[in-house]
């Protein structure tokens, strides 16, 4: 019996489109093999870096490319690398964050399953840039199959001399550890990830010090998302100028968008930043419209932690600046589509249940606030809402936002606030009439 269903990608388009690079070979079943990866130009960037570039030159090139972190925060990758103190005598560590758990996001998984060497090559280049000799990939525990793919690829990379001692006669040593987590969303947050990797409960740390100064084992540490690192070899091979020419002026490059929910063709699509959200949802080559010919109710454009957009707002470009302007965020690039049959209170109940469950419990506003929010939202959904509940939700949200050590609290609040802003009447109806305005009964 086959377990995994291959997710739809636009790899065919990527084969013909010179601008797309992350997905070019993901439909080639041999791509995970090191020989095939090398035939497709793999590890060329790594060799180039080792033989012709200084760490500073690598950092400068990645800075110039303008690539920003693809995990959600959008911080410039090269700038982050530059934060590692040059004069530190401590070991430095690079960690690839593969704890993909933001609801709606399923893109890093495709890269691990189908192009694992691309990730290793990007990690190696990042490691070299910051002077690291031991790098980690932290994979969420449920992705056992991804960990197996990465382990296998790692062994192959060692066997071909891409990792290990005196790599390609450069004098540079680099080792790699594949680490798996235990099913905690919070460990995608970098300081919680560090605690988890140290064998502790995955609870966030107060910054400063930032991980680049004192991270894993109190040593300088850089944590980068899978997609960000997988992009790095392409930047080195084709140059920062080429990468800058993709996307928009301020949001350069391509991005993988995970499209899920009520669309006809859910899948992972690599497109240039600045791509139309409307096109992603409706174009037959991508989402191919709303399932069952229903009307659109709303879209979450960047993973469950980002504010909703309403149908009149979807004529927006998918890049960092345009989505902020539209009142939302690019986040992890997980586009979740809701049709008109979705009760907004029901949808938010699902989300707040998640954040309450995943709150690590360190900060009172998040720990207590998400639990109160779940209680109130659940009672509204069950037809037991009380007058003043909406205002109470708003007040609790205000008291969580910006008052926690890590962004989980903000992430819990932002979709709720936007759902009340856009559909306040529906919330009021639910309280007054003690039932849904539209019933979310979805068959599978």
């Amino acid at each position, binding site marked *: *019996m086959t*377990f*995994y*269903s291959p*997710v739809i990608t636009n790899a065919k388009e990527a084969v013909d489109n010179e601008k797309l690079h992350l997905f070019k070979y993901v439909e080639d079943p041999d791509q995970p093999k090191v020989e095939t990866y090398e035939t497709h130009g793999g590890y060329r960037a790594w060799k180039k870096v080792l033989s012709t570039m200084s760490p500073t030159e690598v950092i400068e090139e990645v800075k110039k490319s303008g690539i920003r972190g693809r995990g959600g925060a959008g911080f410039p990758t090269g700038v982050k690398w530059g934060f590692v103190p040059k004069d530190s005598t401590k*070991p430095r560590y690079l960690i690839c964050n593969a704890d993909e*758990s*933001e*609801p*709606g*996001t*399923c893109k890093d*998984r495709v890269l691990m399953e189908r192009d694992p060497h691309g990730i290793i090559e990007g990690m190696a280049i990042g490691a070299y840039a910051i002077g690291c000799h*031991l790098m980690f990939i932290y994979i*969420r*525990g*449920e*992705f*056992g*199959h991804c960990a197996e793919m990465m382990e296998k690829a790692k062994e192959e990379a060692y066997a071909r001399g891409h990792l290990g001692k005196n790599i390609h006669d450069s004098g540079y040593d680099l080792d790699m*550890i594949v*680490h*798996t*987590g*235990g*099913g*905690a*969303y919070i460990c995608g947050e970098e300081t919680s990830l560090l605690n*988890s*990797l*140290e*064998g*502790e*409960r*995955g*609870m966030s740390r107060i910054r400063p010090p930032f991980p680049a100064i004192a991270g894993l*084992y109190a040593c300088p540490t850089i944590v980068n998302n899978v997609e960000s690192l997988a992009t790095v070899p392409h930047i080195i091979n084709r140059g920062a100028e080429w990468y800058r020419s993709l996307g928009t002026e301020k949001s350069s490059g391509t991005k993988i968008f*995970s*499209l*899920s*929910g*009520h669309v006809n063709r*859910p*899948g992972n699509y690599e497109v240039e930043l600045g791509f139309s959200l409307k096109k992603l949802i409706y174009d037959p080559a991508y989402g191919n419209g709303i399932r069952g010919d229903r009307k659109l109710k709303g879209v979450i454009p960047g993973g*469950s932690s980002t504010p909703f957009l309403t149908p009149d707002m979807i004529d927006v470009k998918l890049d960092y600046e345009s989505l902020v302007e539209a009142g939302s965020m690019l986040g992890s690039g*997980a586009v*979740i589509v*809701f049709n008109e049959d*979705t009760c907004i209170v029901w*949808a938010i109940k*699902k*989300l707040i249940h*998640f954040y309450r*469950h*995943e709150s*690590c419990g360190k900060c009172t506003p998040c720990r207590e606030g998400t639990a109160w929010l779940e209680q109130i939202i659940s009672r509204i959904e069950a037809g037991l809402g009380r007058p003043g509940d909406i205002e109470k939700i708003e007040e609790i949200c205000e008291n969580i936002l910006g008052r926690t050590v890590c962004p989980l609290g903000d992430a819990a609040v932002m979709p709720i606030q936007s759902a009340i802003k856009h559909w306040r009447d529906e919330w009021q109806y639910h309280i007054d009439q003690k039932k849904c305005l539209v019933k*979310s009964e*979805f*068959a*599978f």
Partner: protein
Amino acid sequence: MILTQESVQRIKDKQAQYPQRKSAVLPALTVAYRQVGHLNDDVYREISQIIGVPILEIAEAATFYTMFPKQPVGKYLIQVCHNISCSLLGADSLIAYLEDKLGIKKGDTTQDGLFTLISVECLGSCATAPMMQINHDYYENLTPEKVDAILQQLRSEA
């Protein structure tokens, strides 16, 4: 001893990779979970002896991570994703369907000890929804027919 010689060796091999011994806690828990099916104080005690980390610290970490069951579960642990993308494509009705087919409620184990049914948070399978994880494998793009076939297959293998 609960952990087999093979599991003990795997834990030791994993620990040898890390600069600090405590980093082996999660890898050790993972190896133990894969062998035993759940974790408890006896398992923590053995891990503690293998990796040289106090049992309290093992338990402290283990109880944070929800992926590891802390009570015995059925031979097949069915974990249905109930998060938003799966819910939009029928996770609630998938859970109801499984409850009906297995004759149990969510959270329970069948009398023959074969199946435990629970629902879990997002498993990163959003574009292949709805889905469930059974033990360590993903089953995606589920339909009633697929679910029937999967259950039948597992029953015949049991």
